[in-house]
């Protein structure tokens, strides 16, 4: 008889079950997001996992370190509701509208609690996620030349190329405890398909120890689709929850359009602490994942 020795490696860090579990969003968040986690809710303008964020706010996980290239409305909401101790990001704006007022209030005035920030450029974050997915300790790229972020963020360093001597930027790989993404669909086996602006989602899932995906729908199988579509195999995913409309007011390519009016509206809601709290109470705390389907009803793309 022979036995195969387990070898100790970084791959033991992955906490995947063998295949993705279909669960309610409440269960998926409760099982996978823990106090103090480093969590990435990703989606580059498209496919932002808003429903998962709102569920996290209802469950009140604490002391989170949130990672996301563009914090967007969703991190503005989590920061304003006091879930976050640190944010790692590269563009803290309301895309195309202006500033993130809850994030600003936390940075400038410590409300509702002080917020540590680790700020990067997009190129750095994208490279760092990719390094995380690739199992590397750091990312190397040609960046931050002349940029002052390198002076205020100790996680930005420079190394010399061993072959050419070129000075290159290095940042630590991003390895989240848990990644949340929204995707178009899963098949019955729990494989997940993402298309359109796919952003950084694949890298975020593969870099994370646990991965939760909300999807618009579940289909029988992916037969007959284009062979190069982005498909995340079931065994790379921990948990799947079906939440139609789950990325509103962001959008899901092929399903519904971006609710630009909501992004414009957020600028006013987030400008005032009480208005913000009242809005969160009515639309998040007292709501549920099922509410999302109705929010995209008027934005759906005709079949």
């Amino acid at each position: 008889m022979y036995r195969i020795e387990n070898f100790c490696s970084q791959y033991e860090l992955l906490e995947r079950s063998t295949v993705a579990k279909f669960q309610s969003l409440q269960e998926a968040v409760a099982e996978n997001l823990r106090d103090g986690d480093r969590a990435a809710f990703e989606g580059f303008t498209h496919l932002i996992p808003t429903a998962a964020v709102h569920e996290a706010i209802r469950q009140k996980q604490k002391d989170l370190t949130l990672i996301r290239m563009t914090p967007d409305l969703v991190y503005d909401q989590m920061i304003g509701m006091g879930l976050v101790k640190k944010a790692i990001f590269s563009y803290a704006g309301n895309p195309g509208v202006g500033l993130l007022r809850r994030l600003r209030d936390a940075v400038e005035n410590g409300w509702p609690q002080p917020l540590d920030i680790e700020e990067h450029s997009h190129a750095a974050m994208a490279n760092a996620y990719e390094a995380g997915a690739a199992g590397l300790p750091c990312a190397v790229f040609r960046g931050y030349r002349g940029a002052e972020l390198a002076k205020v963020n100790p996680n930005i360093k420079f190394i010399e190329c061993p072959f050419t001597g070129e000075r290159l930027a290095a940042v630590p790989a991003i390895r989240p405890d848990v990644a949340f993404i929204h995707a178009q669909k899963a098949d019955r086996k729990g494989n997940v398909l993402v298309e359109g602006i796919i952003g950084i989602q694949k890298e975020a899932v593969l870099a994370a120890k646990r991965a939760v995906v909300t999807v618009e729908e579940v289909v029988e199988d992916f037969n007959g689709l284009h062979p190069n579509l982005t498909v995340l195999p079931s065994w790379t995913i921990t948990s799947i929850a079906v939440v139609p409309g789950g990325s509103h007011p962001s959008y899901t390519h092929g399903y519904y359009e971006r609710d630009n009016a909501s992004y414009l509206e957020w600028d006013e809601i987030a400008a005032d602490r009480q208005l913000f709290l009242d809005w969160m109470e009515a639309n998040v705390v007292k709501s549920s994942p099922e509410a999302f389907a109705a929010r995209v009803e008027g934005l759906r793309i005709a079949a």
Partner: protein
Amino acid sequence: MTSLPFTPDEMMTIAASRALKNSDVCFVGIGAPSAACNVARLTHAPDITLIYESGTIGTQPDVLPLSIGDGELCETALTTVPVPEMFRYWLQGGRITIGFLGAAQLDKFGNINTTVIGDYAKPKTRLPGGGGAPEIATSSHQVYITMKQSLRSMVEKIDFYTSFGHGDGGDHRRRLGIDSAGPTLLITDLAIWTPHPQTKEFTVQALHPGVSREDVQKNCGWKVSFAAALETTPAPTELELTTLRDLQARTKAAHRRISRKEEAA
């Protein structure tokens, strides 16, 4: 200036659009740059390649996107690539001829601040930050900047060097090992500027119609240099104005559209 049949904003966008060529591969920032790039595409540069940092390559939007990741960009693009690929292969790989940026704060050497007003650790105003700009500013072959002039936005000393222009001027880029040209053009709502060949300080080359030297100086926080042979920017043509206004009207209608559900309620 009130008697002119176009606004300073329109003149700025149109002047910026003229600087773009059909053969350019342009990395587009949101706001004024996006409008200028699309006016160029809809007038004299139909084959210009517009790239937004969400990964859309060769996009031809019918309305201006509110964000860099609007669905319109993906649906009208030649192809859409993942974000790491966008920054690694296309930008860092040297395939972008023009990086087109806006700025919250700009100095006379084309250094850009979009990070903080005040001290970084205790900011007076926390701005969105750099996004793609720090690397767009150094990896694009050259950089165009477009912004409205004001004493707040065009300053002697910026509070934070988000994206490097010409640093302290002269050969500062070379000394840092940056081999791209950096900012080569600044287009404001009042004038067209290019960097001095040696000092790299922005110099006004042309005033927009109806604008005086005093107007430019009054809305700029550093002492402005003017070219000896100062020109006047040609006024917008009928086609340029109509193209821009139609584009903005379509955009406004699309962004303010409320969902059918709300209309029904």
